């Protein structure tokens, strides 16, 4: 790696490394620059223009997300010129964003970075523009909803689909004011290379991409509990979003914090219906003399289970017992299962599906 050097950021001297962007350095120095199209998982696009900053010697303002640092450069992130630019820009986005005055309806739980930033930075009031973007109303996929009225074409979703998930199922289609997020032949996502990972929803800054399953649940009413995904062995961290005692949405922690770097797959993000499924086992069952399984109390069921295994041991010895633990259960539970097998029943016949 080549030598680090110094740049000026709002008059302060800051260390920087070759290849870094202005936004990288600003982030490290605690200088806040608004962005919409930026996602640390993606190549910089410089598309949304919210992060424009002044660079001494450059006639035009430059996108902090894509502009690489140079030794001795002098960057200004707050000025009257930048303010003016942002007010016009947010005004244009909001005019094209949604036809109602209030912006996004409150019941839409998706984070709306655009609306928050427009409120914070001030948006010039402009008459609404009715752009003719089309969605895919006939798309029957059960998870991903696209509302073209809320899209600002920052292309985070399509770039995520290309660069991170690498299936390129969605893309910018049409031209000019009709430009939208489309698929080949405007097919439903189930008929494309889409793997329903939902990364497009995760990265969307405007609520144009949302989850069908949790749509309409007020964001403020969700409680998030951090946990670990229960499917494969990657160990993705998840936030289980709870509403009225049920898991209604699963999201990833932000990029950069955990092993999954903000990403989830179709199972981790969406396959949680099983948790509250009506076919879950809910009561202990004991087989009766009639050969059928009957509902029993916990006391009866545990007694019966222990007696049944003890009887086998009395008759055939401890090694006629087998204990199958589970790589689906927790570490503590696996610890207890082998302890049960060894200490309570006296056999090392204890294994789990590691070899399966």
């Amino acid at each position, binding site marked *: 790696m080549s030598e680090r050097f110094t740049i000026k950021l709002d008059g302060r001297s800051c260390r920087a490394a070759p290849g870094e962007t202005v936004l990288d350095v600003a982030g490290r120095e605690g200088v806040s620059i608004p962005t919409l199209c930026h996602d640390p998982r993606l190549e910089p696009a410089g598309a949304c223009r919210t992060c424009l900053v002044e660079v001494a010697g450059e006639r035009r303002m430059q996108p902090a997300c894509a502009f690489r640092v140079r030794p001795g450069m002098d960057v200004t992130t707050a000025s009257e010129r930048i303010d003016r630019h942002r007010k016009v820009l947010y005004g244009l986005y909001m005019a094209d964003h949604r036809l109602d005055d209030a912006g996004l309806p409150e019941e839409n739980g998706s984070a709306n970075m655009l609306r928050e930033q427009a409120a914070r930075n001030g948006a010039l009031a402009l008459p609404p523009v009715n752009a003719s973007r089309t969605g895919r109303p006939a798309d029957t996929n059960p998870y991903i909803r696209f509302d073209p009225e809320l899209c600002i074409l920052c292309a985070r979703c399509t770039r995520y689909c290309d660069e991170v998930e690498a299936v390129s199922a969605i893309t910018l289609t049409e031209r000019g004011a009709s430009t939208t997020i489309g698929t080949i032949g405007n097919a439903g996502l189930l008929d494309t290379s889409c793997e329903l990972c939902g990364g497009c929803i995760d990265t969307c800054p405007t609520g144009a991409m949302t989850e069908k399953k949790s749509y309409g649940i007020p964001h403020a009413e969700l409680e998030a509990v951090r*946990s670990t995904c229960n499917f494969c062995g990657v160990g993705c961290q998840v936030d289980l979003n709870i509403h009225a005692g049920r898991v209604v949405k699963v999201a990833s922690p932000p990029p950069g914090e955990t092993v999954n770097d903000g990403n989830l797959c179709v199972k981790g993000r969406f396959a949680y219906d099983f948790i509250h499924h009506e076919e879950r086992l809910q*009561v202990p069952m004991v087989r009766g003399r009639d050969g059928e399984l009957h509902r029993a109390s916990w006391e009866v069921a545990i007694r019966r289970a222990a007696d049944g295994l003890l009887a086998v041991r009395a008759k055939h010895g401890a090694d006629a017992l087998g204990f199958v633990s589970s790589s*689906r259960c927790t570490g503590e539970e696996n610890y207890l299962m082998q302890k049960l097998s060894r200490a309570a029943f006296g056999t090392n016949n204890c*294994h789990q599906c590691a070899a399966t």
Partner: protein
Amino acid sequence: MTNSIPEIRDADLLFVIGSNTTEAHPIIAMEMKQAVRNGARLIVADPRKIWMAEIAERHLQLRPGTDVWLLNAMAHVIVTEGLTDNAFIEKHTKGFEAVREALLPYTPEGAEEVTGVPADDIRQTARAYAATPRAGIYYTLGITEHTHGTDNVYALANLVLMTGHLGVRSAGMNPLRGQNNVQGANDSGATPMFYPGYQRVDDPEVRLKFESAWGVALPPKPGLNLNVMMKAMARGEVRGMYVMGEDLVISEPNASEVEVGLNNLEFLVCQDIFPNETTRYADVILPAACFAEKDGVFTNSDRRVQRVRKAVEPPGEARADWEILCDMARAAGYLMPPYASASEIYDEMAALVPAYAGISHERLEENVAGLQWPCPSAEHPGTETLHLGGPLIGKAGFQVVQYRESDELPDGEYPLVLSTGRVLYHYNAATQTIREPGSMAKAGRNFLEIHRRDAGRLGIEDGQMVTVASRRGQVQAEALISPRMRPGCVWMPMHFADSRANLLTNDAGDAVTGTGEYKVCAVSVRA
């Protein structure tokens, strides 16, 4: 994994063998895609032209079950062309001379005959692997689910050791674990040979330690692994079973034998979250909480211990598995301590295993990215890359590995080779994912992938229902004519209870691990 998942994107070469990463480990696949975007070379060895093969610079489409020949031939090239890391071999390994001798017959040309992989591809792969300092090996069940699974792993380890690709960031030996907590289940001692932390049950000193901790005499004889347990059950040697969170009938090979065994049992307890094919045989069914309804930890593929937190209440009267297990132990007359929480159970285990001594629920609250063992003290940050200062065991041993054929090879009656595996949209026995609309919309029923040439010869059209038969059973599935297949090979997912791939599979097990030969059995297919 000797490396960690975040190291993947910085690798310069990925050798992915027997891992359909995009379907079985989608998020690790994202890291691999990132590495390739960053310029890493990707070489895939797999009998199927899987998704990763599409973006690889080279795809070694070997015949199923010929991995040892392929890997030994790579090692042959490295040895004969002088590409070994002699300083590493000298300092950190033993047994190299015997392996060098044993490798001599494994020429790339010989490998081409057996594996079907062109000799030049093998040479180029071996050279690239040996010459790239940050070269990582990634494998999954395509390596282990063979009667020679342990040999496959040894052959890979030989490659790692002779090139010194160990204890280096982004270079190492990386088995990708299939289940959320398969690493943790083994770490916790749910295994017939080891107490928690891989401490041997037949070591008297170790046993004494656990006897004094648990206050009871413990059995000295190692137990049966699952594969052997299933056979012992069928023979009537195992008469009582306690099964927590596994559907044996769907998951184990040669399912009809498993069902014979379950029928033979005098007593069966099942503890699960859904009724399944195995609970039908149960004498007692205990309803358990799922992961969202209880506290604990899972340990992932890169040895990362992470929290599972209770978010919602279990349905009906269902209870956390750990609570049920405590009650079971007490009902059987063992004084299980009165744990107030999963955290206390973890502390008890951590006190018995030096490598986890520094890990606790408390510390995991502050460490949002988890703690990777070995983590021997409360001040230790955890271990991202294993073997950094040389192999943990001192000197790592090379293993001489000779090629053996798979247990069951195709013949006139069963002319095709069947491998089984997973699809992205389902998870193992699919008790969770068959209840999910997206999974069912994308993969709603069983199918058999078959090469166009075999389908044509058998008069089978795409989408047609076919009967697949082996010596052990038969199932119906929809034929999917697929350019991913090798001629002579067919492939089927293992998820579907109404069309069970494991009625077909061979339960001949690896001599060391007992793992069944899910990846190779002989079948016939007819319209």
